[in-house]
């Protein structure tokens, strides 16, 4: 079942401090974190975002702090997938670990506009911009990253491994 939603567009180097500022790290509650997601670069994001919506961003998305609160906030805000030209490494791992789908595709990141309706087929490796009619292909995950998505995140994968010991 492909993911479908409206696009919220961001630029390069969106850091985890703006995804969820440190002043809100007093909580680990996903809903509370989500209520402040992106507020320092897009004060209305939380008001606009609808369940299933999609973030499209430029290079190095999620750079900076290792705070897992960042992908947690994005996921709890209702975002179904983050598409970016590239991701910062720690954010990339964190997103996979909590089973927040992420897709690296620079062509899509460049061409898709804010407000477009976009469909993403994670297994098929296709992003479809339904507003412009453009299609974009992306490479599927490999190795340990693929194992994580198949298991539904690192908690589940580790639970299976611990149980098998």
């Amino acid at each position: 079942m492909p993911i479908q939603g409206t696009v919220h567009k961001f630029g390069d180097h969106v850091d985890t401090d703006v995804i969820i500022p440190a002043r809100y790290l007093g909580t680990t509650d996903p809903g509370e974190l989500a209520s402040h997601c992106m507020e320092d670069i897009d004060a209305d994001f939380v008001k606009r975002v609808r369940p299933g919506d999609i973030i499209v961003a430029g290079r190095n998305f999620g750079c900076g702090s290792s705070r897992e609160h960042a992908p947690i906030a994005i996921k709890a805000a209702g975002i179904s997938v983050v598409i970016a030209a590239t991701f910062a490494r720690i954010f990339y791992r964190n997103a996979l670990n909590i089973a927040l789908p992420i897709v690296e595709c620079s062509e899509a990141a460049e061409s898709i506009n804010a407000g477009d309706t976009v469909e993403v087929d994670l297994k098929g490796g296709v992003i479809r911009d339904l507003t412009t009619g453009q299609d974009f292909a992306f490479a599927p995950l490999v190795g340990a990253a693929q194992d994580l998505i198949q298991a539904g995140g690192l908690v589940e994968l580790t639970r299976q491994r611990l149980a098998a010991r």
Partner: protein
Amino acid sequence: MTITEKLLARAADLDACRPGDFVTCKLDMVLANDITAPIAIDQFREMGATAVFDRAKVALVADHSTPTKDIKAAQLVKKMRDFAREMGIVNFYEGCHGGIEHIILPDFGLVLPGDVVIGADSHTCTYGALGAFATGVGSTDAAAAMATGECWFRVPESMRFRFSGTLRPWVTGKDLILYTIGQIGVDGARYRAMEFVGETIENLPMHERFTICNMAIEAGGKSGIIAPDDTTKAYVDQRAKRDYVMLQSDADADYAECYDWDASVLEPQVSFPHLPENARPLSAVGEVPIDQAVVGACTNGRLEDLRLAAEVLKGRTVDPNVRCIIIPGSQEIHLQATREGLVELFLEAGCVVSPPTCGPCLGGHMGILAEGERAIATTNRNFVGRMGHVTSEVYLANPAVTAASAVLGRIGGPDEL
């Protein structure tokens, strides 16, 4: 192989590995702090884990919001403390025994050359200065590692940065790393290991090597690394309570990119808002008045950093329009700084001396900026809103430039005093 490939192969029990390989490594230390540990603890329990893999190989450090800044922070630290007690974790640090994680773990001999370490803090890459592979992860990775003692990695490509020449006065390891990030950008080393070599690096003391590796993440690096040598050995031998191995890159190791820079021509660097890559030589800074100056953080909160700031502040007074905050990186450093007279010197110069904490670096507490305010800091990040209000600004610099700026009331160097 590079030193990074050798470290990962060794921990994965392999003869060799290459960039792009996926390897599962045995970990020598797993770290989390008061921001990241609470989520890790929830995930650890969610995984069905009931014990940590090794009580001596987990470190939990309360440093980000300590001394606890509010009830929420106190609850998070309490959760971590309770977990540490329940699990019998040996290396739990807070308050009177503690300090900033990336300063105390090396200082207490808990990370050593040859180790493979992960930490739920992006600046875990600091330990590369010891010749260890160390990288930041999130809470869930830390949770799985606490349970299993293992972590998977994609073996990174390595980049080599060679510095030659003698540094000018007031130029430090901080300036070398700010310059490096300025040259390659905040994603210039994304997913890669940054290996620092050359006579300039070999002549650097440990504290400056820590500063360099600390900021590898600010170029997107997976890790920073400096091959261990006699300087490393002298530092480690005073602290190590177990055996360690010193590895080196082979002469024919493969690098994705190599840079050769003449360090003797570099000036102190200042990184302008809002990215660490906006580095400029001090002479190109122009007139930038400041409201606050901060010396501290896992980047530059070591005793030698305080000595450098003190050398500049000695007999001088902080500008009346500037709050100058000095944050020793640990209780030990604070005590030694007191014994050496540094604390008295700072107080006489008009500085506030804080207990050890990450505090203002991440906009937590102990020096938060108001709307439109500007700080110069020895910290490692100058993102939008990093030290406070979304319109505030952070300029990154070394301790000497930060201290001089506190006296001048604007960004400037010790030579202008």
